[in-house]
């Protein structure tokens, strides 16, 4: 028998809170530096557990031009301190999003980042066009899903392709545009530069790492789609490494750090690595209130770090 540490005084995470430490990402003020990560938040599920307006930002699931049915199940497998998913961007499409989830989120008063998905430049453009006049506060362009019109390679892994896409989207909207980068690349710095040079206002990273699990009873992959994307605590050091390298190379671009964050301490590591804000993904699946808890813990931790807190409030990074 072994022990688990369970502090006896739990923190109240969902009560309304006076946020002491905000951040600014691409000119947009967040009441705290913690957002939800795309694909792990749905208003009709997460809103049951906490007041979504208390988050720094709500990043929605990927929105495509038409409804997508995603990949067949099983869609998820476990890995040590991680999970592998092959959801495949199932979503009801941009029209449904504009008619339903976005107005609900905005009516509540949430700061909304709309995650934009596509299989081709056309797809991204179509969604961006429809979002340009919407109430979304920021757009996050997810360029790390398989891109059919470019021979199965991801837009986010080729600087020239990425540059062309972002340049095109840039002309379509004045909304702050975040480009979400893939960790499945040889040279993140070149790709980050391509996005920034083409007009990205901010970068978010990391998306999931390609991975899989196999069922040793059948000898076959656990997920119907065979491979999927790895996330969760297991990827924490990898996400930190990516954020650090991009921050070293590009001093001024706002960065949203993502990957394996499940506590204020880990969020803080990302801020020290150079992020201006963070998003919480897998942890929210394991506890619906995790994003709120991370935000609360970080608010406390920033009290004793006035220099860092001041930089964030000014839209600067560590």
């Amino acid at each position, binding site marked *: *028998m072994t022990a*688990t*540490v*369970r*502090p*006896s005084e*739990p*923190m*109240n*995470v*969902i*009560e*309304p809170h006076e946020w002491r430490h905000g951040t600014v990402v691409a000119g947009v003020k967040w009441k705290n530096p913690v957002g939800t990560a795309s*694909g*792990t*938040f*749905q208003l*009709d*599920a*997460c809103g*049951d*557990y*906490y*007041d979504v307006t208390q988050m720094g930002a709500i990043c929605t*699931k990927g929105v495509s031009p038409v409804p997508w*049915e*995603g990949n*067949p*199940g*099983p*869609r*998820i*497998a*476990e890995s*040590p*301190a*991680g*999970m592998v*998913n092959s*959801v495949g961007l*199932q979503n009801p499409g941009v029209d449904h999003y504009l008619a339903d989830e976005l107005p609900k989120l905005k009516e509540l008063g949430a700061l909304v980042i709309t995650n934009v998905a596509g299989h081709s430049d056309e797809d991204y453009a179509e969604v961006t066009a429809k979002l340009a006049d919407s109430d979304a506060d920021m757009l996050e362009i997810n360029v790390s899903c398989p891109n059919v019109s470019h021979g199965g390679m991801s837009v986010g892994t080729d600087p020239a392709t990425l540059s062309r896409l972002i340049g095109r989207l840039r002309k379509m909207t004045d909304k702050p545009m975040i480009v979400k980068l893939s960790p499945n690349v040889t040279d993140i710095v070149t790709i980050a530069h391509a996005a920034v040079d083409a007009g990205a206002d901010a970068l978010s990273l990391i998306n999931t790492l390609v991975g899989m699990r196999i069922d040793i009873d059948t000898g076959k992959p*656990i997920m119907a789609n065979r491979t999927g994307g790895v996330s*969760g*605590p297991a990827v924490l050091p990898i996400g930190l490494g990516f954020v650090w390298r991009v921050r070293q190379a590009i001093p001024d671009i706002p960065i949203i750090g993502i990957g394996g964050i*499940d*506590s204020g*301490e*880990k969020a803080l590591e990302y801020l020290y690595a150079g992020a201006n804000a963070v998003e919480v993904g*897998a*942890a*929210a*699946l*394991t*506890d*619906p*209130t*995790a994003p709120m808890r991370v935000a609360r813990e970080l608010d406390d931790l920033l009290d004793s770090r006035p220099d860092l807190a001041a930089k964030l409030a000014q839209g600067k990074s560590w």
Partner: protein
Amino acid sequence: MTEERFMSTATSAAVVQEAERFGRKPGRRVDEIVRAGTLAEGVYELVIRDAYVARNAKPAQFVNLYPADASLLLPRPFGVAEVTGDEVTLIYQVAGAGTRQFTQLAAGDAVDVLGPLGKPFDLDKSANYVLVGGGLGIPPVMLAAQALSVRDDVTVTTAFGYRNERFADDLVAQYVDAPHSITNEEGNVIDLLDSIVPELEAAAKAGRPPIVLSCGPTPMMKAVAQWGGRHGAEVQLSLEARMGCGYGACVACVVDTPQGRLKVCKDGPVFTSEQLGWVV
């Protein structure tokens, strides 16, 4: 650095209290284990103290348990089998690493919990509810027996199929009007259902048409759906799927239906055989 973060640090009572104060559902919390034991070979019982689940759980709803081992992230969903005061009974078998760890839990230990979750059986009608459970699909339908037992306008029939030991018959006896069960050696639940057709027809004539509530292995449930089609019975099926969250956030737990891919954790786990397109 605190790596052990994926374990909840908040006690059940505090979390529930805060959630209710602000009109929310309670998040992941720590429950005390009241009792842990073995019901039959390979079939374990775990009784947790969770007043919120006890008050709110409806038949076919489930709770997520989380292994204490922080390297196992995903929820382990289990149907709520019975509720007594603020105690909640779960019944499970060992399937992998998580359930293997649960067998080590003892009274006084703690376990992380979320729930109750999912869409329950629809029990609105006055009917003869026929609870068809197979193996570890029996626990999720047990709560229906308990819930229906207090009503005057229904009859409760069970048709449980066991691998061998009849671990649940005694537990539900007090709630059931017409208990039936069968073991693998004796036959399957379809054989059992066929054998009680006269009984069901009699009840139907007396104004209690059969509504089948079923949970078990997929091939069994498909057969049950078709049996229901053949006998003109409404069939509600409680499905299983690998889950990422269990509360509707990740869209990992889909089932293919004629209306598209639906979430087992939130659109279900209960679906009608029509919804699933499982009737011929």
